[in-house]
């Protein structure tokens, strides 16, 4: 799990750097060559969609999402454990349900063969980010809910630290 997390984290970093390069190259091309890179805005937005939904999955693994996490700090260990399980089961149920809806949307997009306007990329590619991100969040949340209590701590950094 840790290796996969590190690999995905690094890939997201590379994707963000690629977005920066494309963005700067686009602006520079407009001034230096008199022409922007065709479809670059679209590509950057699609990359951002992937960064958001795969990144949100990794933040779930780290237990780092933003929230008002006061109650679990004041509860006794048993209560905090119960709340931890309840939270993760809710996340699993919710993300699993939305992932099923996303799958249905992907099938629909595939049937009609919808493509993006500038780069003509199949629209299933950017939309799949929601399905992949939330589908895997469902699996991860189930794993977090069911693993033994001692392993529940210290998997990642606190969200507040990064925010």
């Amino acid at each position, binding site marked *: 799990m840790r290796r996969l997390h590190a690999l995905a*984290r*690094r890939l*997201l*970093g*590379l*994707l*963000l*750097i690629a*977005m*920066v390069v494309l*963005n*700067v190259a*686009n*602006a520079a091309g407009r*001034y230096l060559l008199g022409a922007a890179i065709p479809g670059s*805005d679209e590509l*950057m*937005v699609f990359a*951002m*969609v992937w*960064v*958001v*939904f*795969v*990144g*949100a999955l*990794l*933040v779930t693994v*780290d237990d*780092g*999402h*933003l*929230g*008002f*996490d*006061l*109650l*679990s700090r004041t509860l006794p260990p048993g209560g905090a454990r119960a*709340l931890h399980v*309840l*939270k993760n089961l*809710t*996340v699993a149920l*919710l993300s699993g*349900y*939305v992932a099923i*809806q*996303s799958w*249905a*949307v992907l099938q*629909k997009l595939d049937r009609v063969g919808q493509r993006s306007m500038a780069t003509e990329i199949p629209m299933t590619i*950017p*939309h799949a*980010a*929601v399905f992949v991100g939330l589908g895997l969040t469902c699996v991860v949340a189930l794993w977090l809910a069911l693993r033994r209590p001692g392993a529940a701590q210290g998997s990642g950094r606190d*969200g*507040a*630290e*990064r*925010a």
Partner: protein
Amino acid sequence: MTLTLLVLPVVLFLLGFPVYVVLLCAGAVSVVAVMDTPALIIHQRMYGGVENYALLAIPFFIFAGELMHRCGVSQRLVIWILAVLGRVRGSLGLATIFSSTLMGAVSGSSPATVAATGKTLYGDLVKSGYGRPFSLGLITSSGAVAVVIPPSIAMILYGASAEQSVPKLFIAGVLPGLLISAAMALYVVLWKASRTHRREEARDTVTGGEWPLGAATVHASGALLMPLVVLSGIYLGYFSPTEAGGVACLYAALLARLVYRTLSWREILDAAADSALLTAQILVIVASAAVFSWVLTVAGLPQALFQWVADSQFTAVTFLLVTNAILLLLGCFIDPSSAILVLTPILLPMVVALGIDPIHFGIVMTVNLSIGMFTPPFGLNIFVAQSVLGVDLADVYRGLVGFFLVQTGALLVITYVPSLSLWLVQFV
């Protein structure tokens, strides 16, 4: 609908569920259990919420801020500000405020500003007789200015949510941000003057000694140029806020790697990875808020509020006063990004009905939520200061009271003098 749109989100929020789960759960349960709409809409709204060119500026400015934070910019800014201030009474306190303001212009992140200025200045502040509580209050509250000074992530989110121009919001935030800094500076000078009676006692001790202004300016020039490049690029029409974000990243990476030589390529990649995750933390809330606000709109809440304001005797003055109170309170519990995304669709129809300028309201909202960043008991900056400086929470709380009152006073001026926010907008 009251159950799914009000009771359910409040209960989940109080139980400590992540904000994105609170919003998505309330939206999804409303769609499935109450509304007669295919559930595919949940995916469509989530995807549509983040497939927005204007939001691209967020990962770019986060990445640029992360690079500037990691490459040691704050130390250089502090040295430069101390050189500019010379031997003014309370120079170290003033340096804390002005370096936080500059860090805000460089990084746009309030917690990063608190961490950077806190690590750099806390020891010297205590040594110079500011005392632990006052020093902590100063560091924690100064960092909040970063939310108001452009480039501001909160303003980009407000701009996307309220369909307002981000460059106009950025420029509108300049004078209010400077007003807050000036009010804090006046408070620090008066506080220092009231506690030191002899000139020698008033002099602050600085680790690393004093630098001549010329040498300090050269030393900090790389950091000082960044906000100039970004903001002049936007306002002279060379690039959009999104492109400015990309240019800021490139500038920060070259500065860190080739000029300061404080970061390796691997560390730059690590900063990019952290920025990607921070982007995800914020924008997944945008995606969920898109579902929630769509349900609110279809349920007719904004229209009902619009009608209620139109029918009631509410004036803009009372509305802004009540809104300030609510936002200050909420700001203690919710981070500015989440609060803006949830509240903007609800409040904007009332703002429009009362004839308040949406750009001015965006600044009022941002200032309110920036104060919430350090308001006890749960302001995020308080915990950042505690964790970075290893101090007692009670000391931080005690030190914050005066700064809270000063910034709330500045907020009232910003709220009731719209020209302070709107005067510069006319030149854009």
